[in-house]
């Protein structure tokens, strides 16, 4: 099994952790699934979001079952817009749910419950509990509770690794094993379907100049004979795992676990996507990560 001496190149994002609680795990999951729907890539979805993990009643502010979700955008300005519209349409509307900030110690705060309170049409009320304001919105079911502000993290988006396999089945088996191994790791999400990407992209396009991303032809096996391929002999399918996280270390640790799980029969090698270091300041060197060095830090400050 070969792990290429290369690095995954990632970029700065801004993120929140949303805690959704409900009467039971079913309704917390229903809400979280809707909130994180169509949020695979900022390229077209304007944000990237996924479930981080399920929470026991002992882990949630109101003592009910819950789910934590991470949501990322490319900049600070768009973050509250995306969070407000998604919570407003998928958590506020969902039976029995309440919504809390999952980053209470983060000093940068964005107003989420405050703008959403106007749905209450003047009938809303607020409560201060432990120094935090919560809004009570009257709804047909009863009442929806949401925290006024959420912590904003300077996160990292676009951590990745590619699984180069002998067959499509082998690639999928390895990718599923990697996703299972990374499931529930704190501070990390895998925003694509099932955590796996089959259509990795390159920046721009060769033929269609208006495209901001197009197929990664260097890793497309059907194009091996007609393009400048990156595929070694014997590789017939490639799947990618993309990771977003609250910090560099969380992603690096998840990559270590995921790559380790992906190294199995039928996999030829593991590599990673980068743009020569010109796109993003966060570089996840596969050899360093697999040797346990997950403390690397970006040399360049993430964009505002």
């Amino acid at each position, binding site marked *: 099994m070969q792990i290429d001496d290369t690095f995954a190149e990632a970029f700065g994002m801004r993120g929140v952790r949303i805690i959704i609680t409900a009467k039971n795990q079913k309704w917390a999951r229903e809400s979280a699934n809707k909130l994180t729907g169509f949020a695979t890539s900022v390229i077209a979805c304007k944000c990237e979001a996924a479930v981080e993990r399920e929470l026991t009643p002992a882990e949630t502010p109101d003592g009910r079952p819950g789910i934590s979700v991470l949501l990322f955008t490319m900049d600070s300005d768009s973050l509250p817009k995306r969070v407000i519209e998604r919570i407003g349409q998928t958590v506020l509307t969902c039976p029995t749910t309440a919504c809390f900030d999952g980053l209470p110690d983060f000093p940068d705060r964005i107003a989420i419950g405050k703008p959403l309170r106007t749905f209450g049409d003047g009938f809303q*009320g607020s409560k201060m*509990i432990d120094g935090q304001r*919560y809004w009570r919105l009257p709804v047909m079911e009863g*009442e929806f509770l949401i925290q006024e502000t959420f912590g904003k993290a300077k996160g990292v988006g676009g951590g990745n690794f590619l699984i180069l396999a002998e067959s499509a089945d082998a690639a999928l088996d390895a990718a599923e094993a990697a996703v299972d191994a990374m499931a529930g790791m704190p501070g990390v999400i895998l925003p694509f379907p099932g955590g796996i990407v089959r259509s990795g992209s390159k920046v721009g396009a060769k033929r269609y100049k208006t495209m901001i991303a197009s197929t990664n032809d260097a890793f497309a096996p059907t194009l091996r004979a007609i393009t400048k391929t990156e595929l070694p002999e014997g590789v017939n399918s490639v799947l990618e795992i993309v990771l977003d996280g609250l910090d560099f270390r969380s992603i690096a640790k998840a990559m270590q676990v995921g790559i380790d799980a992906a190294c199995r029969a039928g996999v030829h090698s593991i590599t990673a996507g980068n743009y020569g270091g010109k796109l993003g300041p966060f570089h996840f060197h596969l050899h360093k990560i697999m040797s346990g060095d997950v403390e690397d830090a970006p040399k360049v400050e993430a964009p505002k």
Partner: protein
Amino acid sequence: MSDRITLTLRAPLARALDADAIAPDRLAALSAREISALELWDGRTVVALGDVFTVSGDRSPSVLLEGDLAQLHGVGTLMGGGTLEITGSVGNSLGARMRGGAITVLGSAGDDAGSAMAGGSIVVAGNVGDRAGGALQGASKGMTGGEIIVRGSTGVEAGARMRRGILYCASAGAGAGAGMIAGNLIVSGTIGDGGGAGNKRGTIVALGPVRVPPTYAYACTYRPPHLSLMLLSLRKRFDLLVDDAHVHGLFKRYSGDLAEIGKGEILEWQATR
């Protein structure tokens, strides 16, 4: 500097003393000699603190008061931080206008505890007198922040005219929450007559029996989501024996006082089988 300043009553107090000089954040900057020289008021006469208390320790934000202090009034007035522990009972106006810090009373406290307080916490193991968390005389609003936890009973007009914060007690006398502007009054036992009269936006949580005033109107029976958050917070912070049946229970919501703006509420817990 010592870990704690201990003030021990030399002899039982024969008359009331005004002791608003005793607040941890003010004592934290003083030597034992300076603390002994602080002025207490016996009517119109000044008494040195050192004549009433023995002083041990200095320059600490943690203060221990020992003795039966039921005649000592105004302790913790305008307190802004630190901790104050009182091993016995204490007099009126405990923590009046306090802005921060924590007061713990192992006995009981007199009238006007936490009057017009804006922050911090007062925890009383016994009972408190009238107007806990209320307003200063002539003032429009009572406590505007912080928490008052009374493990025993409160006298009349607990939380009257409160603006913000939480007042929790095991039972409340007549007129509890009268004229509440906002804030939260939580009573685990009985609430006396006239509770919530003139309430504007306040929340009165009745975990025990309550006579809902006729100027309130029944709205619905439901689980108030903020209440589980609040009760769990109180359980965690003050080690209160909060029942899970209350945390996740059903409450009747009465809107009122409709003689006022009607945005207040009485939440009456419903025992379920």
